[in-house]
């Protein structure tokens, strides 16, 4: 069951790299967030506390699955944009790059020295490939909405990695990370609003033309 969730998360990474429609991309990121929310429960072992896992799962599901997508939908509705027209790296090349990154992550992650025993064989490669996909999205898209989505995917990867050390991580740290993420998206929403009002488009390239 858990391996199926990991595979789905990776397939969603690939889909995001290929999709040009912002609405579909936001919905897919929401699904990815919701899938990640189920992971703490699926990976639960005897020595973990159920309460900790439940809080993690519900927190991730609420914030990644519902709150942030709602904010993003609001953002694209107000900016009235639907799709990424001209990414810096095209859709097919970015999908191939993502595929290469995923293949490398799955091929070499078994050799990494890790602090404690792996709870699942796919955990580390999924985390690495999700981080890689998020990074690609952030650097290869022009529209601010897509860059925020890339940041969210990046954070999803970090979250998966965090599950590895969930034993050591106090609940306050988790809550802090989720709060940070929420604040970041909130701030980026305001920034997007201002970019949109200033240039009447969400193209971040235009920011480089700013002068005093």
């Amino acid at each position: 069951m858990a391996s199926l969730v990991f595979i789905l998360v990776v397939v969603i990474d690939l889909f995001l790299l290929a999709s040009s429609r912002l609405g579909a991309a936001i919905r897919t990121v929401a699904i990815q967030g919701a899938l990640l929310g189920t992971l703490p429960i699926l990976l639960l072992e005897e020595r973990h506390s159920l309460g900790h896992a439940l809080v993690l799962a519900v927190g991730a599901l609420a914030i990644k699955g519902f709150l942030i997508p709602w904010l993003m939908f609001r953002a694209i509705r107000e900016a009235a944009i639907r799709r990424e027209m001209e990414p810096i790296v095209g859709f097919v090349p970015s999908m191939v790059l993502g595929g290469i990154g995923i293949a490398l992550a799955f091929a070499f992650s078994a050799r990494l020295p890790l602090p404690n025993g792996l709870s699942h064989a796919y955990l580390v490669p999924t985390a690495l490939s999700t981080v890689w996909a998020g990074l690609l999205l952030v650097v290869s898209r022009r529209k601010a909405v897509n860059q925020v989505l890339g940041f969210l995917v990046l954070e999803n990867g970090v979250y998966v990695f965090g599950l590895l050390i969930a034993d050591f991580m106090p609940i306050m740290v988790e809550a802090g990370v989720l709060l940070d993420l929420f604040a970041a998206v909130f701030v980026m929403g305001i920034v997007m609003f201002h970019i949109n009002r200033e240039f009447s488009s969400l193209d971040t390239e235009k920011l480089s033309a700013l002068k005093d």
Partner: protein
Amino acid sequence: MLLRTLFHLAALLALPPLVVGLVNRTKAVVAGRKGPPLLQAYFDLAKLLRKGAVYSRTTSWVFRAGPVVGLAAIASAGLLLAMGGAPALVSFGGDFVLFAYLLGLARFVTALAALDTGSPFEGMGAAREVTFASLAEPALFLCLLVLARATGTLSLSGMLGPALPGAWGEAAPALVLAAIGLFVVALAENSRIPVDDPNTHLELTMIHEVMVLDHGGPDLAFILYGASLKLFLFGAILSRLVLGHAGGGLASEALFFLGILLFAVGVGLVESVMARFRMVRVPQLLVGASVISAFALVLLLR
């Protein structure tokens, strides 16, 4: 055993137009229409076979050979494929390469016949067809490699044979991804909707239909029958791959034909709920299928 082989051969030759009928019926039901009769494809073939053919003076023997060689190649590919619970009629190590290239040969002669007419329009269709086929081929091979690796055999009969249930137990995620990749390849190879619309006659968007515009009568019947045979072959692979190999008795026969039925309904549903992609998006879909199958292979190799 002999009786069963004969039954499979008869099914291979007789059922394909019915699969096309099932796809069309599914589309009609979803759209709320009554739709053509299930056996319409047979009526069409019978009608076309009774007609004569008209050949343009600019065409040569290549044009006449196209439909015949194409149908023969697809039918021989069918002999390599295991149906029901039994192994295939012809089977040897590495026969999946022959399978893929027999389908490739059929495409090649069809494109050649299209070029032979000298019509620039058909040349454009041929160019499109081979462009998309060249992108679908890596995906097909990667899927078959996943199967070969998961079952540890190199023949199609072995890949889709008794070793499959064990492989599902060990490598289910990789096989699911391979099945998705194969389904996309099946849609592309059979010019189904997200890639090509089999009903369209809008000149600028047609792919496969463009190449066969100048064929008529028995030639067109051969081409249509060959196309339905190809759809049946992909349905057979997917049916065996997904529903598995249940022992080899009558149950596995029933399961196999149920799988083909589900495949036809699935294709019909995809055609009903999706719009066809713009031409520039098609390579993206096919590269996506290749990347997903490559990912499945990496999962198995690690």
